[in-house]
């Protein structure tokens, strides 16, 4: 049996939105094993992003347990969470979230800076990673000089440069046309199949979710069905 990357039990999360309490997650149980490619689907407002933020250690659940690589995340300090985000997790966002006015190469280097990697190795690893996603000739381009698809490739390179055990993608193709979106999904497939990268992906597009090996649907804060 493959190693467990994520084990979540009875997760609850409530937050206040404009003074109204929103019960975003109402008891989530989820296990993700190494090498899996999971798609989390659901209509907007179903709590997808909230779940993703908690899995990504950007937010903390109110109730329940969450182990990442066997480590009890709920017990960690903010510095330890930062370290986990740095070492274990890679993020890809719908709106790319690249650092503005910062070259592709420097964007990819950023997580390595926080990992304390020296400059030479930072350069080297970032360059390699950008070549891997097909942007070897765009190292010094700024985000606004790149197309949406290219920006998302930079984001993927940045997410993977620290060799995390889990890639979290939140609507990664949401801002792309069909062709670009298809290219990106091919890249994710490759990463999963060839390098055994564990991926958790959020989407509301069925054809995107169909590429994943496993799919769960989130509705009203509960995981409804799994296949």
């Amino acid at each position, binding site marked *: 049996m493959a190693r467990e990357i994520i084990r979540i039990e009875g997760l609850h999360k409530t937050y206040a939105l404009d003074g109204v309490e929103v019960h975003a997650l109402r008891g989530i149980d989820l296990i993700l094993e190494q090498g899996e490619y999971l798609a989390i689907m659901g209509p907007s407002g179903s709590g997808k992003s909230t779940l993703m*933020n908690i899995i*990504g250690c*950007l*937010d903390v659940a109110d109730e329940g347990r969450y182990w990442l690589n066997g480590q009890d995340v709920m017990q960690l300090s*903010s*510095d330890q969470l*930062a*370290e986990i*985000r*740095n*070492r274990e997790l890679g*993020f890809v*966002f719908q709106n790319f*979230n*690249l*650092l*503005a*006015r*910062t070259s592709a190469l420097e964007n990819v280097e*950023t*997580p390595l*800076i*926080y*990992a*304390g990697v*020296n*400059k030479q190795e930072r350069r080297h690893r970032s360059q390699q990673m950008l070549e891997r996603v097909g942007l070897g000739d765009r190292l010094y381009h700024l985000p606004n000089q790149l197309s949406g698809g290219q920006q998302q490739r930079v984001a993927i390179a*940045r997410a993977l440069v*620290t060799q995390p055990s889990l890639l979290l993608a939140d609507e990664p193709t949401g801002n792309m046309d069909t062709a670009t979106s298809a290219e990106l999904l091919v890249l994710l497939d490759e990463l999963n199949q060839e390098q055994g990268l564990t991926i958790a992906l959020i989407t509301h597009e069925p054809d995107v979710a169909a590429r994943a090996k496993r799919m769960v649907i989130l509705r009203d804060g509960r995981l409804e069905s799994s296949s």
Partner: protein
Amino acid sequence: MNWAAALQLALKALWRNKSRAMLTTLGVIIGVASVIAMVAIGAGAQKRIAEQLESMGTNTLGIRPGSVTRGGVRTGMGTVTSLVRTDADAIRDIPGVIAVSASVRSSVQVRYRGTNWGTAVEGVTPDYIDIKNWPVAEGEFFTDQHVLSAAHVCVLGQTVARELFGLANPIGETIVMKGLACKIQGILSEKGASAWGSDEDDRILAPLTTVQRKIMGIDYIDGIEVQTAGREETYQVMNDIKKLLRQRHRLMKDQPDDFRVFNRAELAKTSEESAKVFTWLLGSIASVSLLVGGIGIMNIMLVSVTERTREIGIRMALGARRRDILWQFLLEALLLSAAGGVIGILLGLGGAVMLSRFSEFPVSITPWSIVLAFSFAALVGVFFGLHPARKASRLQPIEALRYE
């Protein structure tokens, strides 16, 4: 995160907003420059006062005849003739006294061939020029022997020499004061204006006895100058002189002193003290502008934190710890203030040098004002940078990421 990387990040962030960074720094530049220039002006004034006091003679006491009451009538200060030369001789024996000179003074019309000049002649003893720290520039001063024999010799101040002889050499010439012909032995060095604005060089010095007997026809003296071993001894000496003179003048317990003792060291201290206050005053006024510059930094850093909330969120998602974010913004503030400090120091020094070159204002650049201004600037950077930096580091990653 290592320091080199942090520094690079901060520099890049500042470089992206060059004009904003420069304008922010301007506040600190002006603050530091004005602290340095103002303190230089204050210290210059302090130095000039110290020089003037030095030229007056340090650690000196002056004794003048005082007021006496006879039959209910109190005479004015200096109108009595209570001081005599033997008083001066007796003071010489007090421990802590280094030099004593009795003096008399009279205004005279002095003639040399066709010209004449109205000035003052002072009868003194050779100790006088030591006490006053006033060496002769040319020729020689008269000796104790000259005083003993009431010799017809004199030494001229620079002003008198210039008025009577122009560019010619007066040494060896003879001038006439109140019918008394005196041979010129030497010329005093230039002393300039006194602290009270009178021309110190407009005088003739002659042996005490010569002026007393042959010019003024008196047997009392107008004053005694005393030099003490040091500032600490001065107070004791002062008390000893008072006791001695009361005894010598046979004053009863209920009678007031018929003389006055002036402590020049005390005067020096007071003037130096006020100059110091002046320096601090100027410095602290300038510091206010440095403070305002610091507030400018805080202001711009707060704007920057708000603008870059998204960036902070991204960095946190990529693994930046709170202290990484804190240092990034603090370092930016520190760089701004340090750059302002360095440029401000150069500008302040330049300004002070220009001022001293193109005006009469005395300027003295003190190393401590540079150190103080720079460390104050750095402190301003830390103090005013800390609040925005903490604000940035305390953002919740998820909220920062969602910030539009």
